[in-house]
């Protein structure tokens, strides 16, 4: 018993219990997988793809990628400073720490489509409210994720800056940012990806872009167009993923 303590077993038992309960509630049962043929049949309906409207859909994709880009970039620009306020080791007063955490938690807890709905009423339909909804949500997500990276950063360098007599903020930023930067980038690109997928939900309520097209095609059962939309979305996600990988490699 070198790595495991008794408490670990208790945790495992507890998890197992929770898993069993959840399985019961969700009707988890692999024997239900009788009808593989159904799946194949269903997927076959998506092909051949209907590429008639491709130029238009590409245009819409461009809008989606713009929505996602602005949503995640501005989210990061606002969330990053907040994350320092929301990290235990860099936040100065407990009240600020706690307040920021709560605010971020709130932003994160509101589903994007609720933000979208509310903003739509003030701004009209279109991509702009979608961008704002994604920004608001991303502030919450990136603020939290980055704050946890900050909390698990090495303490030594910060201590060195403190010992130099540096101002609190220069110390925190200069000693921590270089440490967490590759992971911050990785989170940013991940959120960028997610924002492309989020445009689906926002498309449902008129947020524009390829997400809206997808829902229109979906609701009219035009699966041969849906497959094109999904493919475009997948390509965008993979593209972002790929370029994120390259950029990250440069900084690591």
């Amino acid at each position, binding site marked *: 018993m070198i790595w495991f303590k008794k408490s670990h077993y208790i945790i495992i038992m507890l998890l197992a219990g929770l898993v069993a309960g959840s399985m019961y509630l969700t009707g988890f049962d692999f024997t239900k997988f009788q009808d593989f043929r159904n799946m194949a049949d269903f997927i076959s309906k998506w092909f051949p793809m209907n590429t008639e409207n491709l130029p238009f859909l590409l245009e819409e994709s461009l809008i989606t990628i713009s929505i996602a880009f602005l949503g995640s970039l501005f989210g990061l620009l606002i969330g990053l400073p907040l994350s320092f306020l929301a990290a235990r080791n860099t936040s100065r007063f407990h009240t600020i720490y706690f307040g920021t955490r709560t605010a971020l938690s709130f932003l994160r807890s509101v589903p994007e489509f609720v933000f979208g709905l509310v903003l739509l009423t003030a701004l009209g339909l279109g991509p702009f409210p979608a961008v704002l909804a994604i920004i608001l949500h991303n502030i919450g997500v990136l603020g939290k994720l980055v704050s946890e990276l900050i909390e698990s950063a090495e303490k030594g*360098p910060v201590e060195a800056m403190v*010992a130099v007599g540096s101002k609190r903020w*220069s110390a925190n930023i200069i000693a921590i940012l270089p440490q967490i930067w590759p992971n911050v980038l990785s989170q940013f690109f991940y959120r960028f990806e997610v924002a492309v997928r989020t445009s689906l939900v926002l498309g449902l309520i008129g947020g524009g872009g390829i997400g809206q097209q997808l829902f229109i095609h979906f609701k009219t059962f035009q699966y041969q167009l849906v497959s094109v939309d999904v493919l475009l979305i997948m390509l965008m996600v993979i593209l972002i993923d790929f370029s994120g990988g390259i950029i990250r490699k440069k900084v690591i």
Partner: protein
Amino acid sequence: MISLENVSVYYKSSERPALKDISLSFQKGDFVCVLGKSGAGKSTFIRSLNGLQPVSTGSVLWNGRAISTLSEREVREIRRETGMIFQHFNLIPRLSVYQNIMTGFFGYKSTAASLLGLFSAEEKRKAGEMIEAVELNVEHSRKVEHLSGGQKQRVAIARALVQDPEVFLGDEPVASLDPGTADRIFQILKKNHSARNLLTIINVHDVLLAKKYASRLIALKEGKVVFDGPPNSLTDEDYEMIYRG
């Protein structure tokens, strides 16, 4: 200048105290070397001097005022006058040699100037000079991860030196250096010390080096001061007592 009154330090995850009821005082002009076995409390001691390690009981006084009662601003002023070299260097990863050294100036700069990297020509000259002094003949733009152990340590020394400190605290600043370089670094520290009448306190394992440069030796054992006096008063029995297994 600095004095300790009945200072004890207890760590959370350890049963025994790291420092136990220590009372000492240091004046400008003292060149103190602190000896002691591994685990005796040397690092804890040096870190408690500028308040990096809060004391559990007792107090550390700077010019008669307890560090724990000072405002954040006052503590910062003390610290920027205090150069410190850490046992594990505490360099900032992914930054270059030069960038790491430039952070030594942060105590004197506004947050904006620090983060924008606005350094005067004088500061740059100074940094270059210190890089020379510690014999760092590597590319200035190399990331500190890509240095040898002793080169890392010398970056840390240069960072502390550019501060032009009034008080110099070193936690085994030459442990990773060869005897030649170690001696030359001590020469620099000593020259600095004498020229500007500093207070220098250094943990060191190399007793010969300590004897050669220190004006006062202190030895810790299990968190207590077991020797305090001029180097020539350290007898072989003392030595034996300090380092016995």
